[in-house]
């Protein structure tokens, strides 16, 4: 068999890839487009894979690179924070869903700036190690941790003060 990773092995990771893609694009159709693109890249690059134990981070990395390579350009709605800025900023003002009340913790996470959201998704939801996240996103482990820390604090602030978030919106 040419392929080192079986299709059934790849399929096991598709739900996780869809979640990750959705946390990047915040749009289900776009997310599935991105997963499709990543899977196409993955199966056409089978020679690059060394160890089957690392399939999951490997797939995440392909997907994230595909997102960065072209996907993001198509989206004009992304309000990107200056990288790693520690400045306070209002909760997700100007984002497309900014009038929807926070219903779930997931809703709150989707309001984090992208660089924090990605790290939080990979660590907290998908259970990757800091080293693996560092490889997927292409940043040092220390940066992973600082983004994680700020993302988590901001998430907590949003969830602690839903009333404040509401007030800001109701005019």
């Amino acid at each position, binding site marked *: 068999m040419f*392929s080192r990773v079986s*299709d059934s092995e790849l399929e096991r990771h598709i739900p996780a890839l869809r979640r990750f893609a959705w946390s990047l694009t915040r749009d289900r159709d776009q997310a599935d487009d991105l997963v499709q693109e990543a899977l196409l890249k993955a199966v056409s690059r089978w020679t690059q894979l060394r160890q089957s134990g690392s399939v999951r981070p490997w797939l995440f990395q392909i997907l994230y690179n595909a997102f960065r390579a072209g996907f993001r350009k198509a989206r004009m709605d992304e309000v990107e924070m200056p990288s790693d800025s520690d400045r306070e900023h209002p909760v997700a003002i100007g984002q497309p869903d900014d009038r929807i009340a926070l219903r779930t913790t997931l809703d709150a996470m989707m309001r984090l700036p992208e660089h924090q959201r990605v790290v939080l998704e990979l660590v907290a*939801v998908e259970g990757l190690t800091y080293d693996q996240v560092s490889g997927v996103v292409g940043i040092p482990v220390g940066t992973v941790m600082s983004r994680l820390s700020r993302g988590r604090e901001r998430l907590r602030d949003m969830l602690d003060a839903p009333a404040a978030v509401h007030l800001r919106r109701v005019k």
Partner: protein
Amino acid sequence: MSGNVGPIGEDDLHAYVDEQLDPDRRREVEAYLAANPEVRRRIDAYGSDIAALRRDAGAAFSSPVPIRLRMTEIRRALRTTAIHRLKQIAAGVVLVVFGAAIGSSLRWQDAGPTARAPMTDAMSAYRVFAKSPDGAVEIDGTKRVMLVNRIAGHLGQDIAIPDLSRLGLTFLGGRLLASDEGPGGMFVYAEPSGERIAVYVKTLADGRRSAFGSRQDGDVIAYYWFDGRLGYAVTGQAGSAIVANAAEMVRTTYR
């Protein structure tokens, strides 16, 4: 995350929440948290946020994986768009192996050496009828009630006409058919480009069930499944981007 020594830092606390500490350091952090209830509250809150995120994310993605993300579909797309000859061969080999694996789990292979590939009858019906400019339908789309009654009577079970208008498809009508296994029928739709898409149904001789499959023969692609009562195939032009979406929608209709 391991190897930290000395005073407990923020990094230790996060690694504690994420269960990425080695056992020794973990014990030190636990001792620290026991002595610092204020910090403990914050760390516990982080922990419950993670649990909530996982729960929400799981619930948000409990829907079935769309067909176009199935590996069979990815392989097919790769094969038809392959730029590199070697990749084409490799993907083909994998597809055959995977196809054989699927095949052995489906009962149509057990039918013996004379068994044909699945839904050959659906593909023939598409070629002969659906693509024919004049003879596509015997009952046109304006007589829906009559069509539904005729096909349901023919199949001996209720059957709805899938509404595919959201995909931009126009319903043209349908016809009764004879299949490999007994009575069958077909609903025919037109894409905006004029290409035809057909929804084919037939009664089953053996009540078999299967997951989604797809096959391509020449320029015709079919997506098919069997639910124990009926066999379904959505057929169209292999190059069309709409066929897979139509199949997904039809499957939802007949669930």
